[in-house]
Structures are given as structure tokens and as C-alpha cells.
């Protein structure tokens, strides 16, 4: 519930951003996933060593990792 409230507060503060103002948003370090190859590695490590997984889009093939 607190999470939903936080999202609504943040979304409530949205501004209109003109196309010519989107240069900063297009920077590599501003992408949601700035290094996809590294992200798949980290996600596989954490998913095979911890109980939690998911939350970041479609899952790929699993492994029998111990």
C-alpha cells in the first residue's frame, strides 16, 4: 500500500517533456538497464543463490544451479 502511495505521489509530479528536452533521458547511464549482458549474469547468480526472483520482465530458461 505504501509502495502504491509512493508511485502515485511520484507520478503526480510528472511534467511535460518536449522532444528536444529528452537528450538527458537518452544517455546510456539513464537507461533502465544500462548493461543488459551484465544484468542477465547478476540475475542468474541471485536467482540461483536466493529464494526471490522476478519483477523484471519475462524470465528465460532456468538452470539446475546449486
Amino acid at each position, binding site marked *: 500500500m505504501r509502495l502504491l502511495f509512493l508511485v502515485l505521489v511520484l*507520478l503526480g509530479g510528472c511534467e511535460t517533456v518536449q522532444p528536444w528536452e529528452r537528450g538527458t*533521458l*537518452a544517455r546510456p547511464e*539513464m537507461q533502465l538497464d544500462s548493461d543488459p549482458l551484465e544484468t542477465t549474469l547478476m540475475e542468474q*547468480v541471485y536467482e540461483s543463490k*536466493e529464494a526471490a526472483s522476478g519483477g523484471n520482465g519475462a*524470465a528465460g530458461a532456468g538452470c*539446475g544451479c546449486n
Partner: protein
Amino acid sequence: MKHKSSTVAALTGAAMSLPAFAATQPAESTISVSLSQYHEADIPSDKVVVGSNERYDIEVGKFKLVTPIGADWSLTVDTTRETMSGASPWGTLYGTTGEPNLIMSGATISESRTSLAISSTRYTDKASYTLGVSKSEENDYKATSYQVSGEWDREDKLSTFALAFSYSSDELSPTDAVLYGRVPEANQRSRSISGSWTQVLNKNAVLQSGISLTKKDGYLSDPYKLLDVRPDEKTQWAVSLRYRHFYDNRNAALHLDYRYYDDDWGIDSHTIDLSWHQNLGVRFQLVPRIRIYSQAEASFFEAADDYSLPRDQPQSSDYRLSGYGALSVGLKAIYKLPAWTVSLSVDQYRSDERFGHNKSQYEHPALLDFTLTNLGLEYRF
């Protein structure tokens, strides 16, 4: 100076044509490769009753190609090759001090895993649609997964809705099944649906909120444990927030991610990822990062294997189902040239019962500490 102006103009021009954060057809092809070394710290020898105290070392090689095809399509090919060696926990029993100790495998485990994922995406003015298939193969585990996903932009291209489905079918065939009384063959299935909403907040900030639901069924126990009986169904869900903010005065970007996870095995968890992407000049970037993780134990978790319980009653002493927390700190250095990017990162992970929000009665002797070193190379053409 001219080069810098043209770079800025190109960047701004590209941004003007971009939807908010939807997948857009890549303007160029990219080949990425990485080599990683994963090293788990030894378990203190006084915690091991039988077997080796040396845990896993894994070497990982990754290759990824992303290339545009025609005016509306792209193709992504992703392969991984891993080689693993070391020992893993087989069971847990109470020692003379009354605290759980470990039965470990010998240090002779040596195996490898190969995976291949191929996906293709079609782009329209306000949407993209992706179909993908992936396979992962080990000598004792085979998995095949299918993914379908889509992304849709709103008219103002400041927000994007994404939806993804995946289905995975896994086959287990544990080694030495007859010798150790393991299940000789088993199957499990996984179905997942996830959705996200990405919103540009202002010219320097973007927020993505996501939710996912996964159902698994089949043989979900660990066949290599001496005694591990898990329910044959599991439903899990997660909500996540990902926030990006660029600070002009610092020439740096803040990444803040949070995930809440819950499942019907009684486990809930919190994960916070925080990183600071500091530009140093035009070509160099340093990224210090920290990850905080905490999970509660499964409802059927036992500190030590209990052979007095009926064999069909769920129980597991796997440390991954115990209540604990983990702290990971890392540093990544990135060097960028017009066509090349080189990166080197080191992350140190330490888990501890005291870091957990709902810790187990005893600290599990197999809680994990590891070091992950990653060298990455990207070429754009």
C-alpha cells in the same frame, strides 16, 4: 569542439525520435562479450561434518548480438557457457554444540552449462512485439523457455506500458541417481506474466513500476539433498520500482531499484539496489553500487534434516529457504570509445542471518559469501 557539437546534436536528434523507454529498433548492430569469475568463500571447516568445505568456482563466458533487420525488425542472439567446480551442501544435522552443521559433497563436482536464447522484435510507430525462445542444457538439467512480450507508447511518448508472458519446461536427470537413491528423472513447469508502466517524470528523471506473477509446478525439491521434500506447487509474485535521475550539476546518474517478493511457501523478501554512475570526462565512468537483500524463511524450513517426519511432509534445510539477509558492494569502471566500450567490475557479496528482517532460529552454516569479477567488451557497428 565541432565533434562535441555534432555528438550532442546526434544525441538530441536520436532522443527526439525516441519513445519514452519503449524498445526502439536499434540504429546499429552491437556485439557484447563478457568473461566472469565467480568464487564462493570456503565454509569454516568446524561447520562441516563430512565432505569438502570448498564451495563453487564458476567461470562464465557470455556473447550477445543485437542487430537491426530491415526497417522494422531486430534479432537478438544470446549465448552463455559456464564451467563449475567445487562442493555443495547435501544436508544439515545438529552438531555436538546443538547448532546445525553441514554434510557436504566431495570437491569433485565438475560440470558445465550452455544456454542459447534467440528473440526477434517487430517495431511499429508506437509499439514493439517480441517473440523469443531459449534453451539451457547441463548434463543433469535441461530447460526450454518461450517468451512473448509487447510494449506500447502513449501518444505523448512519455509513458510506456509493457506486458510479457513466459513458459518454461524443465527436465531433471540427476547423476548417480541409483547410487544415492535420488529421483532418476523429474519435470517442472513455470508460467509467468509480468507488466510494467514506465513514466518520464521530467527531463531528468524516469520511473518504472512493475509487477510479476509466476506459477511453478512439478518436482521442485533439490534432488541432490539427502532429505529435501518441497511442495509440488509454488505461486510467487513481485512488485518492483526502478528510478533513474540525472544530476546535471554532478554529471552523474542515480539508479535506485526496489523489489518486494512474496510466495505461498511463506517467504517474503526485500531487495534494494543503489548505484551512482559518475561520468569523469567524456570517456570514463565509475559506478559504485550497493545491494541490500533480506528474506524470511519458508514455512517448512528446518534448521537440520528431520528423519522422524513422514517422507511426504514438506521439509528442507536448504540455506536458500532460511531467514537471512545479504549485503553486496561493488565497483565498476567503464571506458567508452566511439565504437567500443570496455568495462571491469568487482562485486563482493556477504550473507548473514543478522541482516535479515525475519531471521531463522540458527544462522545457517552454508550462508554464502562470494566475489564476482566481470570483464565486458561491447562493439557497435
